[in-house]
């Protein structure tokens, strides 16, 4: 039994950690968010040079050949700096889906450009009516001369404004809620008929509404067999959710540390407020919440290396529900225990909380995942 990261994983973890500590302080981050693009191209190139963008990709495409553990190691450290550059949406989500694709030509073409930092990507899967049911797809792709013609609208596409390419869920057959009949297309943002309306989100990142009006994509842009897109999504979703949960874990741990440290210096009633038992117990609860989340993540990471998809699926739903529940507890307690200062935009606490809240609703909130867990666990 071993819960340690490997030497290699520790090295990359340390490298991300050093970057966050030394180059990504709160003012730098704020400056990036306020810039035109809302991200730093300079840092993105640096991530490429340091090899971070290559982590999950196979060596044959120039990748590091990492596993979900490596992704988690990077994401946890990025969380500690609430880094706004689109690592999750480009490398973990977009890159993860692409890696699982059966379209070798597409992979050889695009993965190297993710690794060298020249391509940012995003997964366009949410629609106005779909909420968290990803198979609820009203966007259509109909066969035409030259491939498929896509029509529909995708909402809250993470970092859609800076994405060069999208992986789009579009219905090639079946009715609106059918899991089969959804296909995955790689669509260039510059394709005729694609419009992107970008807007800022509370976590300092951006999202976009992406509209497809008779956007024609070649058949060669399909990620896998027509109509079987959801199978590919299902296959990759555990590692996506574990990556996001690792980021959340980094944020939770940071919030807990900030809160404990603050209570040691904040004096009220002639004593540090850390001396009040009511606050001590609550900080013990948030500490335990963080440890439980870490354990749930590690449970998933261990199971990811095994062969039981059912158990992994249960664990990952439980993980996302745990992140939602304890993330909210830790975020709300951090603000409450900080008091008035925790309400200010100037302090970093609120910004950590906001990213945690966004992770909570990305690819399903706590209730959604708990219901999935129930379905897998308690059917008669």
């Amino acid at each position: 039994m071993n819960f340690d990261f490997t030497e290699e994983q520790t090295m990359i973890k340390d490298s991300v950690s050093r970057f966050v500590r030394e180059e990504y302080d709160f003012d730098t981050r704020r400056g990036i968010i306020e810039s035109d693009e809302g991200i730093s191209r300079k840092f993105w190139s640096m991530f490429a040079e340091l090899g971070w963008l290559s982590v999950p990709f196979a060596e044959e495409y120039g990748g590091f050949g990492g596993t979900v553990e490596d992704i988690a190691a990077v994401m946890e450290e990025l969380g500690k700096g609430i880094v706004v550059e689109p690592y999750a949406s480009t490398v973990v989500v977009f890159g993860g889906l692409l890696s699982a694709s059966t379209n070798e030509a597409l992979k050889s073409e695009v993965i190297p450009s993710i690794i060298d930092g020249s391509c940012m990507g995003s997964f366009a899967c949410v629609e106005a009516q779909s909420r968290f049911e990803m198979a609820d797809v009203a966007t259509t792709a109909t066969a035409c001369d030259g491939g498929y013609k896509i029509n529909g609208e995708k909402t809250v596409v993470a970092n859609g404004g800076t994405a060069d390419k999208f992986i789009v869920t579009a219905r090639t057959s079946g009715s609106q809620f059918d899991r089969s009949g959804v296909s995955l297309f790689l669509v260039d943002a510059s394709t005729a008929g694609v419009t992107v309306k970008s807007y800022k989100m509370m976590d300092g990142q951006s999202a976009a509404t992406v509209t497809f009006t008779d956007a024609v994509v070649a058949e060669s842009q399909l990620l896998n067999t027509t109509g079987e897109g959801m199978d590919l999504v299902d296959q990759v979703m555990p590692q996506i959710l574990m990556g996001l949960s690792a980021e959340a874990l980094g944020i939770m741990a940071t919030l807990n540390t900030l809160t404990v440290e603050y209570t040691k210096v904040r004096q009220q009633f002639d004593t540090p407020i850390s001396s009040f038992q009511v606050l001590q117990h609550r900080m013990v609860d948030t500490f335990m919440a963080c440890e439980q989340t870490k354990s749930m993540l590690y449970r998933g990471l261990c199971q990811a290396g095994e062969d039981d998809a059912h158990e992994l699926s249960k664990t990952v739903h439980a993980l996302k529900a745990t992140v939602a529940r304890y993330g909210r507890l830790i975020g709300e307690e951090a603000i409450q225990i900080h008091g008035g200062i925790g309400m200010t935009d100037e302090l970093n606490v609120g910004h950590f909380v906001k990213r945690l809240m966004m992770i909570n609703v990305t690819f399903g909130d706590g209730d959604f995942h708990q219901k999935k867990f129930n379905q897998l666990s308690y059917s008669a």
Partner: protein
Amino acid sequence: MDIKFSAEDLAFRDEVREFFATEYDADMAARLSGGQGSDYKPAIVAWQKKLHAKGWIAPGWPVEYGGTGWNATQKFIYETERGLAGIPDVVPFGLKMVAPVIYTFGNEEQKAKFLPRILESEDWWCQGYSEPGAGSDLAALNTTAEYAGDDYIVNGRKIWTTFAQYADWIFCLVRTSKGMRKQQGISFLLIDMNTPGVTVKPIVTIDGKHSLNEVLFEDARVPVANLIGEQDKGWTYAKALLAHERTGMAEIADSTRSLDALKRRATTEINGGQAMINDPVFQMRLSDIEMELMALEYTELRVFASMAAGGMPGPESSLLKIKGTEITQAIQELQLQLAADYGGALPEDLNAEQLGHDYAFEARGKYMYGRAATIYGGSNEVQRNVIAKAVLGL
């Protein structure tokens, strides 16, 4: 046991309803719905002037100073109807906070000078209590007022001052002497915001908005005539006020209205083709809140009944504050949960129509700013201490 209203009470309720329905029109509602926008001050002042014209601006005041003369039941009905109609409360700092101190402890000149302008919404007041080092431990404040003949010379820093940017006056707790206990030596001082040496610095909150401020005093000269009551007795005056401040924090009618809005919105948010209102898990989340609110409604009625019988609001006001703010926050949390991914969007680059899910901006703003409700007015931890001590005798 019953909660039946008399025929007179019901007639009064109808009158209030009708007044709100006619006077709080769509235009006024639109102007005030944003809460803290640039139009907030003129809009709320316009509304308060309407209330004043009707004679309803200050139900809590004694009749001789401009109160309504309503009995406790009528006050309760009025407040309930206001909340259910979605009408924001009056700005409390003048009407509900400093005015009771002035008419209870102030001299005749002060009453004549300040009360009419408060009734007419001519002066905007703000509250100078908290300081960087004095939050829950308010008595630790150390903004000083040094006696110098006709004036006090005030130096120090007040923080979390809501709407100081609009204020003409600030009522402050200041230290005039060092007593044996820190509650001693505090005075209650009224300060003109235009006094040289007074500056306001904005604080942007986690909802991205500006309603809070720091107020700095650098050798600000304040006439001795602006001292309320006796020097060094200010803590007593301030304390008399706090229980009143907390009673108003249950906001049950407001929560009832917010919960209704949330239920309506849950009929149009769908997941897998099903409206969220039909989702058993979401129903559990809703009923968790609704059941607490149903109980709190009767807790408030019980407190109100005892006040109507001549009692003073005591530690019950702490219970109402704790439960009321926790329910308010729970509604805000669930509303944000309902808004899903859209709840994260900021309104800078797109309008609600473009976003769809048109309540999502409001859901985010209310959730974020709503975190303050368990911090201000005496944090909920402090309120629990009050109950532990005053009720449980611990």
